[in-house]
């Protein structure tokens, strides 16, 4: 056995290869995000700017205050969260489906890496893009309004959990997708309406009782409100319930993704 082969075998025996493998997946994902920055960073920045100009400055001025703050300050956390949701989901679904479509997912499938680590690598890629775009949108928001952070812990926990959950959902979509139509179906017809109706632009307290009850069935409402609580200190929903839901969703989805990989759904014949 060559020295190189011996080193690989020793790494596998002690599990030391896993950290290098995980880091490599993350570096590859981050390189992809930066390589195609015109598709990954610029469009959400432009969209967020338009939202702030139209809803915040032009329309928001006529709306006045909401929840005790200016409308611009009210929608800023929602818009940041919307960009995190869209981009963490979009990153994993397009990267993993692209790897399936181009067959380079086989590079990972033949390698001595456990499935949970492959899932974790892709989720970390989605998390990085979500956070990066979220940061860009936050900087844009600061051009239009002043953002005061009330509870930093809540901001960080909410944004991290949300990015992880939507990265995992993107992974599930990519596993089942058989063509490019199927990776754009969920974001267009499910994710966007749910985000818009998830309290990004309004407080559900403005809605009639029946609409409030329907809104409470929308999981995105809990994520947006948990995040907004971190900035404004107010929320439409119970915070403990919000964070509990997010933790459970992240754990269940991670388990489901690993199970799909173990089974080989969409990846192995």
């Amino acid at each position: 056995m060559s020295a190189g082969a011996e080193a690989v075998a020793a790494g596998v025996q002690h599990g030391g290869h896993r950290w290098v493998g995980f880091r490599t997946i993350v570096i590859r994902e981050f390189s992809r995000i930066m390589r195609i920055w015109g598709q990954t960073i610029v469009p959400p920045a432009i969209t967020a700017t338009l939202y702030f100009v139209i809803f915040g400055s032009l329309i928001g001025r006529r709306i006045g205050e909401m929840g005790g703050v200016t409308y611009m300050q009210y929608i800023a956390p929602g818009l940041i969260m919307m960009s995190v949701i869209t981009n963490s989901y979009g990153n994993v679904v397009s990267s993993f489906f692209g790897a399936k479509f181009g067959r380079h997912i086989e590079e990972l499938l033949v390698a001595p890496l456990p499935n949970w680590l492959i899932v974790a690598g892709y989720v970390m890629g989605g998390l990085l893009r979500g956070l990066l775009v979220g940061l860009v949108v936050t900087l844009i928001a600061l051009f239009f309004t002043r953002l005061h952070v009330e509870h930093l812990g809540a901001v960080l926990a909410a944004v991290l959990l949300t990015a992880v959950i939507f990265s995992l959902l993107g992974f599930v979509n990519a596993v089942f997708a058989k063509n490019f139509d199927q990776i754009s179906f969920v974001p267009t017809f499910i994710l966007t309406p749910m985000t818009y109706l998830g309290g990004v632009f309004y407080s559900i307290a403005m809605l009639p009782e029946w609409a409030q009850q329907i809104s409470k069935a929308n999981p995105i409402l809990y994520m947006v409100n948990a995040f907004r609580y971190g900035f404004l200190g107010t929320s439409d929903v119970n915070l403990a319930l919000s964070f509990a839901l997010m933790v459970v969703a992240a754990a269940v989805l991670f388990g489901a993704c690993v199970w799909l990989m173990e089974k080989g759904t969409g990846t192995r014949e």
Partner: protein
Amino acid sequence: MQALSLRKLTKTYRNGVQALKGIDLDVEQGDFFALLGPNGAGKTTAIGIIASLVNKTSGRALVFGHDTDTQLEAAKACLGLVPQEINFNQFEKVSTILVNQAGFYGIPRRVAKERMEIWLKRLQLWEKRDAVSRTLSGGMKRRLMIARALIHEPRLLILDEPTAGVDIEVRRSMWEFLRQLNDDGTTIILTTHYLEEAENLCRHIAIIDEGRIIEHDRMATVLRKLHSEVFVLNTRQPVAVVPELPGYAVKLADDGSIEVEVTKSQNLNEIFAALSARGVEVVSMRNKANRLEELFMRLVEGRDAETGLATPAATA
């Protein structure tokens, strides 16, 4: 030690197609092994199962003693795969593909870069290290997949039709490279449609057909099973009339050369002597068909005859 052991390996696809019907296969460490079979015989399915790209239905696969059911990571670490289809990210640079693949095997980036240089130089791709992989020629893409499979220095290298669609010069240089690799201790399993390639390179052979191993032996032993060969004799002057050679089946080819079928009990000296006596001067000679190709066709056609299927030979 055995580099690969397959035991009662079966695979039934969801559409009901039984691609493997319980194959047993052993490949010794250090061997250069040919796995041959017609299209759809089950070769790629078997390779897919060994490399964890296909889920098996039942049976066992062991790579250097590591069971792929219980010691999958150790088994994978011993294995390098060059697949039939291009399967690298065509938007990535050559160097990135190799360094990342090394990382998936736990090789730190500094070491990976050193190894990348070694393998790219050996496969004459070093000048292309910064090229985006989709800009490479077909032969270069094949060599890139070989370099990628070797970056972690596997003990067992499986190549699924590595020379398909590459020109003869590249093919010959790949043969040289693979021979050298095998001499250095890497066990190699090769599937190919160029039977001349298998005959030249491999010491052992298995022929798989309709999901079953129908031949599994030393190459020399398998080739000895051929009872006759057809030789083409090129003469100094074109021959107009078929020369009479008692006991031999002789016919004229279109270009005026002579085709003679020679069985194991006969010999070429008799033919040369008889032709010389008739004033026919033979200047060169070659096999009409590759010997392994001949045997392969007989084995596969024999299966069709047994099952009553029509074959070109059977209907001729």
